[in-house]
């Protein structure tokens, strides 16, 4: 029992006061107990990750701590003093800043305006823009990014990572003692994650208490020191990173060991004839794309953010079509100019941002699931014959296939949880009977257990003879799922790698190194 890595961490002997502490916090929403008697402590100069499955209560806890929700019971203590927040701004003024996944920036305003919205410095009754820009530059300097970001730049002109930095600068400008981040690395590239890591290190040294929610255990282990696991609204354990392995954390989250994160890869005899063949295809965003996709295989598309992967998917699907080059589907030459034609030719595209691109929130779940099927049928196709009667059997069948949890398919889709909404999108494509599927970040924002379910389903599809193109930023996912790996860089195909290539090889190719270097890495890795 000694050195049991799963034993909770005890307070340090000097009895340092936690920067923020929650005690016996409970919160109930209609039909679900989101948080049940949770007590936690967060210390200064510490990076603390909160993990758990979808619905474990992480977001709710963060929202309570940042003043967006009021707990039903329990107290919050800031530096030993009890506090209550009835508005997020109250929390912000007390030094608790939260950065959500969908950034809270105004795209058409400058960085300085965004940071100081509501607190603009004034002089003689008017807004002092020069002072505001100067103060903005100061906070940007405090986090070391004053060279990257200018206070007068428009928020919309910044990259996702830069926008996140602005959000962090905003927090600093509030003299934040606690910084809460929801999935901070979700939209970042590999290198950007590294930069964020460095920044968090600097914040840590300033004595800030950094708390973040993430599903990416790999990054949790890279960045955090302490890890707290929540399950079904209840506190499970807080562990120290150095004492555990990711598998232990997963066990705490899920209650069982997940034997395979990934289903086994396909074997050569599983792969059939070439279904999709692209030769020298280009448009304004891509150049000279060339590859083949075979029946029954998973072709992973890897690459840094901005390398053109989503553009490739959009080109294939007709959203931003290719302007030159050739495309062959099942051996027939074809030009896909719009999604309608793509779907008619049995292609499916499960987009990256499922909430804004996949679901019509005010339509019933049933209609969402049948959306694609109906889109390609006769425009004035009568629902009475096709849709309604068929949907009575088809919809529940699909729902069961993707394991949607809902009491009725006639409810508006917006009332489903995020995870269930993603399942509806999946169901929609399964209904369409496609035989070439494009997945763009299929498990982004999904918890560990459901991730495995989706991976299993993708492999299931290939067993049925469907060809899958899978875009992913998570290297473990690429390596775990791909029968072949296509690496993109700089809006071109950088090259192809075989299954089970190492992360190193993939990253080298993605960052534009020569084949020789990559070969070297491959052979040295195998020794």
């Amino acid at each position: 029992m000694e050195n049991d890595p799963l034993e909770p961490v005890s307070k340090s002997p000097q009895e340092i006061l936690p920067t923020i502490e929650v005690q016996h916090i409970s919160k109930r929403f209609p039909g679900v107990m989101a948080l049940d008697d949770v007590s936690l402590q967060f210390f200064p100069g510490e990076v603390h990750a909160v993990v758990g499955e979808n619905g474990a209560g992480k977001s709710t806890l963060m929202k309570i701590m940042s003043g967006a929700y009021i707990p039903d019971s329990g107290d919050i203590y800031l530096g030993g003093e009890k506090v209550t927040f009835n508005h997020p701004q109250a929390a912000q003024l007390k030094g608790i800043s939260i950065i959500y996944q969908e950034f809270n920036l105004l795209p058409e305003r400058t960085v300085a305006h965004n940071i100081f919205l509501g607190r603009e410095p004034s002089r003689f009754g008017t807004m002092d823009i020069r002072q505001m820009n100067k103060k903005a530059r100061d906070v940007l300097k405090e986090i070391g990014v004053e060279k990257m970001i200018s206070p007068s730049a428009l928020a919309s002109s910044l990259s996702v990572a830069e926008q996140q930095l602005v959000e962090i600068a905003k927090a600093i400008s509030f003299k934040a003692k606690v910084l809460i981040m929801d999935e901070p690395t979700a939209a970042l590239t590999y290198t950007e994650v590294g930069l964020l890591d460095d920044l968090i290190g600097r914040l840590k040294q300033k004595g800030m208490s950094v708390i973040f929610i993430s599903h990416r255990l790999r990054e949790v282990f890279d960045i955090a020191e302490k890890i707290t696991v929540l399950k079904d609204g209840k506190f499970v354990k807080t562990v120290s990173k150095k004492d555990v392995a990711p598998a232990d954390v997963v066990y705490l989250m899920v209650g069982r060991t997940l034997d395979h994160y990934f289903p086994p890869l396909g074997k050569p005899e599983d792969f059939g004839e070439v279904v999709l063949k692209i030769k020298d295809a280009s448009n304004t965003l891509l150049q000279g794309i060339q590859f083949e996709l075979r029946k029954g295989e998973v072709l992973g598309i890897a690459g840094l953010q901005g390398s053109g992967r989503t553009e490739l998917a959009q080109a294939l699907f007709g959203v931003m079509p290719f302007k030159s080059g050739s495309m062959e589907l099942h051996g027939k030459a074809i030009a896909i100019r719009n999604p309608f034609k793509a779907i008619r030719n049995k292609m499916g595209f499960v987009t990256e941002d499922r909430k804004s691109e996949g679901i019509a929130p005010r339509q019933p779940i049933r209609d969402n699931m049948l959306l694609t099927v109906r889109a390609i049928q006769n425009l004035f196709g009568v629902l009475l014959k096709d849709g309604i009667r068929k949907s009575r059997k088809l919809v529940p069948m699909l729902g069961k296939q993707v394991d949607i949890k809902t009491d009725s398919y006639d409810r508006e889709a917006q009332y489903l949880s995020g995870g269930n909404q993603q399942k509806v999108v999946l169901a929609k494509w399964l209904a369409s009977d496609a035989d070439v599927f494009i997945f763009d970040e299929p498990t982004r924002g999904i918890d560990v257990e459901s991730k495995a379910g989706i991976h299993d389903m993708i492999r299931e599809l290939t067993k049925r003879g469907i060809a899958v193109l899978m875009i992913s930023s998570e290297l473990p996912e690429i390596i775990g799922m791909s029968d072949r790996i296509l690496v993109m860089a700089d809006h071109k195909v950088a090259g192809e790698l075989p299954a089970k290539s190492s992360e190193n090889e993939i990253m080298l190719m993605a960052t534009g190194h020569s084949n020789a270097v990559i070969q070297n890495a491959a052979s040295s890795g195998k020794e």
Partner: protein
Amino acid sequence: MTESISTPQTGFSKLLRSIWAGIKKTPPVYPIFFIIFIILGLLNPNKYQSMNGVMTFLRTAAPLAVLAIGEMLVLALGGFDLSVGAIVTFVVLVSSKLLANDPANAYPAIMIMLGSGLVIGLVNGLIVSYLKVPSFITTLGMMLLVRGGALYYVGGAPQGYLTDNWRAFGRNYIENVPLFGRVPYAFIILIVIGALAYFLFHRTHFGKQILTIGDNVRAAQFSGVRVKLVRVLTFILCSVFAIIGGILLGGFGGVNVTIGEGMEMQAIAACVVGGVLLGGGKGNILNAIFGAFTLQAIVNLLNLLGLPKPYTDAVQGLIIIGAVAYVGISSLRKR
């Protein structure tokens, strides 16, 4: 044995509960309409408590209802059609000249009108789809275009009268109908159009796609919906229905330069009173029709109360605001 004694009671309370649930779900426009109509009936039993009177009311309300149906389709799509009022003006003025006081010209004139509606809707839809101009601005421009064009064509004043056979659709009745007495042609036309629209909107893929586009156009695109095609067709339907509404209104009211002015606002208001969301994604044909009936009933009520026309406008404004506020607040509470 206690089972059989308690079952009828629970059965009854279950019935009550489901009735109450049904009442809660009923769109507010229906009770509002019926209350107003009942008040009308109490104030003027001769007119509003007689079948004759009801039929007369329906004849008056039909044009706005037809306009509201078309407008609702565009609203469900997430857009606006501000040109429908000008289209009504167009129909009445241009027909007055086309007819040249000769009844034989009636049917060709109507055909030309319907054709024009098709063109107007087509242009509206194409501009929004391909030039990406928001429908608010597009149909605003079209409104000026259509009104200017119509006034130019007739030189600023009606060029003739509308022949009786042309006016029959909006003005005349089918006589000697069992049970109902006389039924206005306008109402029959409304029923036909309403049924057609109901079928298209609630019972075909077309309607579902309109809702999806209004709800989340990107999701619609990515799911293979032919957004541009659906949009153009929707605008065409709206304009053609506006033409029909114009024919009904001209039949009923005769020629008049200002006819149709402001009707686009009334059509939108009718839809909103009927519970249509002004962002798209939700809509119901029957509700829109009753929204129009409600507006008309309000106008009639105010006239009956002896309120001079100016006050009618003011009260209409108050009621529109009130109805929308009520609908908005009650839907917020439902969440």
